[in-house]
Structure formats: structure tokens, C-alpha cells
């Protein structure tokens, strides 16, 4: 038993960050563990720094000292990766084409912290020691640990070990997933999950492919199989609500029809589109592909919520 526990603690993965005191991602007050790597490319993604599996460099111009420092203009930083715009040496500019392969060792040479790595390798023990700090809060609120991302199923061995160790320590577990992964990956993770928050982004496969990069056949099949194979998991369906993409009654109705036959789908949550993640795109040199979309109005969200409440027999 001791040997097995040690092995679990040593399993490593790429973690983006760990956020305490979260209240929107599963029951009670929770600690969210964001892991890196995603198998979709949703145009509205609010966590672009979680998309790539490997750690990557980011740049925050607010922290840059410009010409006073200039360290990134010389080796070992890549040639042409950093430069000054004509007439402005207060902040360096980044040529992302040439700078994107900066390693964590090189980024750490930036004395002001303007260059930072998104993502670091951690083992299960390190993550759980951080998560366990709020055990008393979890007990008082019914909370626990949620693994978010990125896509949790992209690091199935690491996720499974994290979840199993959380259970070993008496911590409730949840995952947020879009389930675009082979079933064999889900099979590793789901036995250790208490609550699964899962995204039903678009029910039409062609449109799903247009907006996320892949069709939804496997995703829907995975959801169905998960509902049937793991009856003890509390499943919570979710839709990121994007005006002009899926913020319409037809989509909400289609999702309700999909989840309704499965009694272990205990809720359906709407996540209205927002633009909070936009600043992160520039810090990574990544182009935000969605045009000028607005957060859906409260009225629209309320109207859909009424449909959901009716379907779940919660009419007031």
C-alpha cells in the first residue's frame, strides 16, 4: 500500500496554476487545478494559456523596464525575438514568430518578471499538498478539488492520480471536461470523479467542427457512455453561451433532450460568453479568432434558465 501511494505521489503533469476559493466549478468552495493542453480550439476560449500541452513563454509589457534592462535583446535570447519599436524604448516588443521557443531557463533570466512561463511540471504530491491546505473549508462547504484546463482528459494518468490521491485524503473531486478524447482515457479518470462538469457546446456536428475544430460524434458518444457506465457520478452539463453561435432556444432544447433520459445528469448550467480572457491572447502572441461578440443579455440568459428549470422540475 505504501509503495502504491508513493507511486501516485510521483506522477507528474503540466500544471498551469492552482486557484483557491473558487465557487463556480462544482459544489461548495473549491480549489481549481488548471492543467495544460486542450484537444479543441474553441474560438471563444477564455483560457488560451491552457491550450498548448507544453509550458510556453508569456510577456507582460507592464513589467518590462525597456532600455534600462534590454537583457532579452542579447543571447541566449533568440536573435530577433525581442526588439524596440522606432522611437519607443520604454518596453520591448516581441516577435512571437522568433520568440515562441524561449525555454523556462531563458525566460527566468528576465529580471523584472515580464517574461514568464505559463505552465510548469508538478507531481501529484506537490499539487495535493497545496489543495489540502483548505480541507477544513471543503468540509464546511461541501467543496473539494476541481481539475480544469485545458482538457483534463489530455493528461489522463496525471489526472487519474491527482483524483485518486484526493480521494485518499478525503477530498471531494470534480473535473471540467469537453471529453474530446478516446474512451480509454476517460476510463482512467472517471472512476475517481464525484462530479463531472461537461460542455455541450454545439449539438450540430458540422457547426461544432466549425467553432471548435472537431465534430462532436465522439464527444456525445463519450458522454452517453459515461452516464451509463458511471451511475454514481453527478453529471452537470454546461454550455458556454455565445451569441450568434449557440445562444438560441434550439440549442438549449437539443441539450435538454440529450441529457433528460439520464437521471444522473443533475443540472445544466449556462456560462455566458465574456471577454475576460482577451488580454491573455496578446501576452502569448496568439490571435483571438472571435470577432466583436458581446456578453449575452441577462434577459436571454433568464429565458433559457426558465427552460432548464422547467426541464428539471424546478418551476417556481
Amino acid at each position: 500500500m505504501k509503495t502504491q501511494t508513493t507511486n501516485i505521489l510521483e506522477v507528474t503533469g503540466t500544471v498551469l496554476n492552482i486557484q483557491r476559493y473558487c465557487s463556480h466549478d462544482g459544489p461548495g468552495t473549491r480549489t481549481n487545478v488548471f492543467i495544460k493542453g486542450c484537444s479543441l480550439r474553441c474560438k471563444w476560449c477564455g483560457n488560451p494559456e491552457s491550450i498548448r500541452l507544453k509550458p510556453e513563454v508569456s510577456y507582460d509589457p507592464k513589467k518590462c523596464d525597456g532600455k534600462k534592462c534590454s537583457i532579452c535583446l542579447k543571447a541566449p535570447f533568440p536573435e530577433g525575438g525581442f526588439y524596440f519599436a522606432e522611437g519607443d524604448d520604454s518596453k520591448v516588443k516581441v516577435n512571437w514568430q522568433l520568440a515562441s521557443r524561449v525555454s523556462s531557463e531563458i525566460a527566468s533570466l528576465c529580471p523584472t518578471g515580464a517574461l514568464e512561463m505559463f505552465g510548469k511540471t508538478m507531481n501529484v504530491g506537490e499539487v495535493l499538498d497545496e489543495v489540502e491546505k483548505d480541507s477544513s473549508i471543503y468540509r464546511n462547504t461541501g467543496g473539494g478539488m476541481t481539475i480544469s484546463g485545458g482538457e483534463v482528459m489530455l493528461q489522463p494518468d496525471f489526472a487519474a492520480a491527482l483524483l485518486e490521491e484526493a480521494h485518499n485524503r478525503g477530498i471531494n473531486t470534480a473535473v471540467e471536461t469537453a471529453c474530446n478524447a478516446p474512451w480509454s482515457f476517460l476510463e482512467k479518470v472517471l472512476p475517481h470523479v464525484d462530479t463531472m462538469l461537461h460542455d455541450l457546446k454545439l449539438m450540430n456536428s458540422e457547426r461544432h467542427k466549425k467553432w471548435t475544430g472537431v465534430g462532436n460524434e465522439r464527444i456525445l458518444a463519450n458522454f452517453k457512455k459515461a452516464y451509463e457506465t458511471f451511475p454514481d457520478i453527478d453529471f452537470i452539463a454546461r454550455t458556454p453561451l455565445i451569441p450568434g453561435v449557440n445562444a438560441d432556444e434550439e440549442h438549449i432544447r437539443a441539450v435538454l433532450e440529450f441529457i433528460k433520459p439520464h437521471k444522473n445528469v443533475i443540472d445544466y448550467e449556462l456560462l455566458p460568453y465574456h471577454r475576460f480572457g482577451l488580454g491573455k491572447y496578446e501576452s502569448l502572441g496568439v490571435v483571438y479568432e472571435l470577432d466583436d461578440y458581446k456578453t449575452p443579455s441577462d434577459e436571454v440568459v433568464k429565458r433559457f434558465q426558465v427552460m432548464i428549470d422547467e426541464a428539471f422540475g424546478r418551476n417556481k
Partner: protein
Amino acid sequence: MSTDKRNKRVAIMVGAGYIPGINAVVAGAALSAGKLGWELVGILDGFEGILYPEKYPNGGLIDINPQILNLDPNTGSVLGQSARVDPFNVRTINELEMVEEVDMSDELLKKLKAEKIDAIISIVGGRGMSILYQLHKKGLNTVCVPRSIENDIASTSVSFGFNTALTFTIDMLDRARLAAKAARKIAVVEVLGEETGWIALQAGIAVAADAVLIPEIPVDLKNVAEHLKNKMSGKKSWGLVVVAQGAKIIHQKKNEEKVSSLKASLSPLATGDSNSEYVINKSGQAAQAVAEGLQLRIAEETFPMVIGHWVRGGAPSAVDRQLGVAYGAGAIQALEAGKNGVMVSFVPPDVKFVPLAEAINKVRTIQAESMFFKVANSLDIYFGKKEASI
């Protein structure tokens, strides 16, 4: 790939982002190559034609014969278009049906070699030029043609596409001015220009705008409002403000979106500041901010307008047609002269060749001593300062 002067097989491709009249560059290259007895082929849709030839019924390369080339300026590029052109980051679906970006630069070079292509003429903007520079460092023979609506590529006086955008913008500003006159309001028109204000400044001069707000001069709207108030205190009952997309407005209250109910699944690095200077896609935000900011400060009504993507369509201007042909021919001349890893540059009256290493990482901004500022000052065009200077 060789760089000797024997009969060459040269390919031509277009980077991401549409600019009208690219056929002019292709025609210039085709005519010039034809004269030398060289073969010119076009790569369809960026690099997709060479990376994924199976997607095309007749292969991803097309023969560019000057005789069959359609030079009608109202047609799109014969080379097609790709939304993303970066062989170092090609979005693919892997064997596990997961989306990922992979480096296909080696594959690209191998396929070009297999097609016996000696060199590539690349019609690209700033980012594309960095990609071609990377490929050049890996062994690709290339000559780049600068292409930019904003005219922000350094080492050349004018990039292909700028004059067409400027011409269209002036036309739109004329219409906006009439609308402002009729409505007796202030039209605030946002034009392209994220890094630099060439379009805003030159178009603003052409239509004698009341104010021009550009990225090079941070602007306090209080000063602009004062200027407009003075101008409109007499007989003039309308106004026209031209604002570049990347204009830097200082002392402006930011619109904070409510956060609490939208935090699900959001990593802790997100901020509530969607109008931050670090937001990339800001189309319409500058016009909105300036129009609102002015209306709050003076007793006049404003209305925002955005030209945005409209400039990317239509026929090229006469200047761009000539420039395009010259750039295309210039690229072939560069290859004939044994040049490689260079950008064709127009420095009147000459066409020159600038090493890519010198062309990248420089943004062509408007300098304080620019004669355009002097002209604008004489027309009483306001920049947020009494005298237009940086």
C-alpha cells in the same frame, strides 16, 4: 535548392490576410519570369497547396502563364487565400482526433525540393515576413514582397495594398462628412491602423478632418473636445474626427465588465479589463470610446462609424496596380541577381533589396519631422496637442 542563373522554377505564394489586387504582383512576376524563360508556379492558399496537394483536384500548384493570367482587378487572387500561413504551427487533427499545432517546416522544405522549386516569391505582411525569415534560415530561397494595408513595414516607402486602403478610406470619410453635415453631429470614424496612423493621417488630410487621433500621439480627449468646441462655436455645426484603431486614449475611464457570474472555468490570470491596451481585436472600440468621451465633454452629439474590413475588398487603386507589377517584377530581378533572403523595397525612384533580417522587427511609424504633420498643422487638424508632433 540552387541560386544559379539557369532556367529556374520559381513559386509564388500569398500570406494570410486579404488585400485587393494581388494579381498585379503575380502578373509582374509572371511577365518578368517569362522574359527570362523561367517557369513560374503559384502555390494555392498560402502553403496549403504544397503541404496538402491532395485537397485540390488538380494539385496544389498552378502554372502561372502570363497569357492566361486574369488581370481583371476586380477578381480575387489567382493564388487563393489561407486564414493562417505558418508552417511552424500548422493546426492539424492527430491520430487521436485531437486538435494540435505541429511544426511542418521540414516537410514543407522537403516538398518544395521534390517539386524542384528553386525559390519562392512571398507576398507577405510583417508577421509573414518573420515566418519567411525563419524558413530562409532553414535553407529556403525566398524573396518577399511587402504587403500591408497600414503601411507599417519598415525599409520601404510604401507597401503593396496601402494606397488602395487609403483611397477607399478617403471615399468613406467623404461620405461620413456629408452624413455629419446633414445630421449636424460629429462623426467619429475609426480607420485601420493598429501600430501606426498612416491611413488616419493621410486620409484625414485629404478630407480636412477636424481631428486625427493616431497611435503615435497619445491623446487626452479633454483637449480634443476643447478643440471641437472652439471650431463649432461659429457657423460650423458638424465635425469629423478620424481615429486610428490603435489610438492611445489617456485618462479614459475603462468599461469594466461585471465579473462575478462569469467566472466559471476561468483561470486566475484573466482580468475584467476587456478594453486593455493588450487586447488584440479592438475593432470598433476606439470609435466607441472617442465618440462617447467627446459627447460627455461638450454639448454636441457624436456618432461612431467603423470602416474595418470594408477596406479589404474591391479593386486596387491605380497606384497599387503599378506598384504591384513593379514589386512582382522586382522579385524576379532579385532572384536573377542572385539575391536571396531579401525583401523588395521601393525607395523612390529605386527598387532595392533589403535583407529580411533588417526588414523584420521594425514598424514604420510617422516620425515627428514628417511633412504630413506640417501639412496637417496648416489645415488646423488637431492631434490632441496644439502642434502636431510626437
